[in-house]
């Protein structure tokens, strides 16, 4: 019990020791991708492979959101024909994937990161610039 912190407990009681920022990876252009390089500050807290897997899954989800495929073209053409008024009523594909991402991050936090005293912040709250990893003080 002492080892597993719930998200709420952690945020209310633990002090923030440091924050690590995973920056964007622009090698493929302006698509939203994050660097998978493992930051040294997290070495003592979490498995390198685990972390890289999380970031890679996020990258895949963002790639899915921004994918140029037949679905996005159909959505775009339909929107153009209706003078883009359907954006007022319909949830776009991107927004649907963002919800999926939010759920995934929450899941990862609950299962993997919170028990280790870490917290991932959804990149959308940072303008899709960084993945903010908050490191809480190790009280154990």
């Amino acid at each position, binding site marked *: 019990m002492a080892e597993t912190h719930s998200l709420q407990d952690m945020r209310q009681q633990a002090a923030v020791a440091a924050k690590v920022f995973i920056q964007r990876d622009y090698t493929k252009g302006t698509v939203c991708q994050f660097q998978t390089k493992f930051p040294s500050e997290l070495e003592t807290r979490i498995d390198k492979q685990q972390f890289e897997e999380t970031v890679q899954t996020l990258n895949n989800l963002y790639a899915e959101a921004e994918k*140029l495929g037949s679905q996005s073209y159909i959505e775009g053409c339909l929107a153009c024909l209706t003078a883009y008024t359907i954006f007022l009523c319909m949830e776009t594909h*991107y*927004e649907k994937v963002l919800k999926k991402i939010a759920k995934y991050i929450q899941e990862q936090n609950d299962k993997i990161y919170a028990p280790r005293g870490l917290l991932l912040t959804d990149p959308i709250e940072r*303008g899709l610039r960084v993945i903010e990893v908050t490191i809480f003080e190790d009280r154990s």
Partner: protein
Amino acid sequence: MTSCEYQQIDPQALPTPTPAPPPHHGNDRDKREEPKRPRRKWQVFPGKNRFYCDGRIMVARQSGVLPLTLGLIVITSGLFFIFDCPFLVKHLTSCIPVIGGGLFVFVVITLLQTSLTDPGILPRATPDEAADIEKQIDNTGNASYRPPPRTKEVLINQQVVKLKYCFSCKMFRPPRTSHCSLCDNCVERFDHHCPWVGNCVGKRNYRFFYTFIVSLSFLTAFIFGCVTTHLALRAQGGKGLVFALQESPGSAVELVICFFSVWSILGLSGFHTYLVASNLTTNEDIKGSWSGKSGEGVTNPYSHKNIFINCCSVLCGPMPPSLIDRRGFLPTDESVQTAGAGIELPPLAAKSEINVGTKGLMESAALPPLLSTSCPQMKPQTAYTCPDSSPAVNSDPSPQLSTSCGARHTASSQGDASPPRHAKTRSKKRKLAALHIPNPSFDVPVSPTSPDAGPSSKASGSFTPLR
């Protein structure tokens, strides 16, 4: 450190405002401000934008000549329906008002969407992020003078691209992002700031803008054609043009407006079609970033090398979400993780939300010396990017060319990149562009798009000197 920090942002579904949880720690800031009503992020937004309808609608601080644009379109179309349509329906076909009506509705809707949508503003970096970036940059001197321009190089599709550091937003600008000095925001895939629509044109509203100018070209050409036909039919039988104009005076006004605008609008549409097909922005085209002037083998790394795919990706690609979450609630402890402002937020008196919003923007912009030192040479006339670096690095076009769409088109036609179809309209456009260049600091009294246009235009008059 409250539950609001982890709140998932759902930009589509906007719940009724729930009161924020009571603060656990009574620090001074909480005591000073109203604990009862939670504030939304648009009220402390650091850029020069105005918000209406509780953050649902946003416009740039200076709406430019948007009322004029709207007025011209409405008046010309109105005259068309009143003076020309009855005659043409009788003598030709009743499809004419239908087509005209459809085009008119399309133009107005896309114009409003271009003006009132978030163009792709990047929220400013939180203080933690900014500190982290600072740590990674070598400080070469002491703090008493402006540090040298900071750049970072990245490799995009085997092309070296320099990312500049934005002193206002405290972050390295992503590729194709530029800081608009008129709106004081970094905008993704920045195209230009258009005074005719009173907003920046960027990643999120470029397709609206393109659809607007294309449909406006069709509308203008259509009205021009119909008016000419109308007058020609009336002048038949030896009656003469003067007689026709006397019978239908509205047509004369339409003729003048359409004649002068059709060339520039058609030219602009053509130019933007070229940009869309090559996946370029106006900003890149004017600076010649990818035209090979700066060296061999410099190509546009963002182009898909296929005109069709370029067009599809720019116009029909997925619609990115707004990153600024203007209707989200601020955490109650007024932590510095608000819209990246990173400043001590002033207490605001209890007034209507819209007034509070405008005043809040003024006050929050007045406070920080941090933000105001970031662009000391910033003048309204300067180009899109914040002049935060030496002239050698920051290639600003001359101030006169930086503001209007028409002028921008002129600038590009003077450069190498203009396609042949513009050649014949170049000289006409230069004359027209000279007429069209508005002074960006020209504060057009905003026509009441909202009840608060009065106070906010007064506010903007006193606001400018603070920056």
